[in-house]
């Protein structure tokens, strides 16, 4: 009798854990959440942005106030139109592939 009572109790206690329907509960919680703090990713982005600016400024002055840019444009001016077109197409293709890859990676990681 004791065993049957134990089994009965176990079965009934487990059944008592029936799923409670959300019924807007999650939405109510989300409404009451405090404003999100300055996230780590934002801090990371900020640091990367500042580091990039500082690097550019250093590179600009270290390279004789950007003479390498002047030289690059001078070299580009000597290229044939077809060569320029090929370079532009190659750059566009690389950027498109990189963008697509980033978008697909994000979509794959999305919730649900």
């Amino acid at each position: 009798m004791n065993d049957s009572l134990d089994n009965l109790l176990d079965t009934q206690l487990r059944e008592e854990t029936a799923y409670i329907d959300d019924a807007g509960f999650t939405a109510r919680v989300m409404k009451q959440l405090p404003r999100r703090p300055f996230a780590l990713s934002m801090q990371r982005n900020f640091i990367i942005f500042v580091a990039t600016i500082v690097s550019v400024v250093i590179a600009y002055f270290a390279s004789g106030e950007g003479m390498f840019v002047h030289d690059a444009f001078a070299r580009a001016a000597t290229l044939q139109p077809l060569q320029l077109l090929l370079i532009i197409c190659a750059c566009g293709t690389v950027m498109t592939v990189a963008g697509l890859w980033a978008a697909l990676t994000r979509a794959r990681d999305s919730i649900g």
Partner: protein
Amino acid sequence: MELTDADLLARVLVDGDQHAFGELVRRHQSPVRGLLRQLVRADVQLADDLAQETFIRAYKHIRSFRNEAKFSTWLYRIAYNVFRENARKRKELVGIDEERLQAEADPHTTDPALRHDLMNALANLPLHERTAVTLCCQNGLSHDEAAHVLDIPLGTVKTNVLRGREKLKKMLAGWAT
């Protein structure tokens, strides 16, 4: 592919992603609300208010979660603390009303439905036994996890579960075949 709790937690921590936290709430709301309903003895509105407070507190203190326990166990612990604080405010802290609860316990309930009887029997257990039985027998926590949630020694949890079950069995003796 569904993200794990750890993935969602990482998104909340690193990106401050509130949608990821919403997904965690959606996943864990049922057991947390269920536990609180047992603790407050089926006062659904109060239980849901406490459950909301539990999740808001979890969000505010999410950085203190150390992966030493499961996320659900951590939530249960917060829920139990929220309940205790509320009970203290309502002057119903553990032990204060135990004599009344014991006196109210009626093992010969006249309700014919077994589950209804079980709910009555659970509600009439002393709080510490009700909590231990709910966590271990209903929510499936190990004794170790329940001890962590309740912040009491492992032996006390085992004793409370055993005593709670014995009392439930006495109260439900009429249903044994």
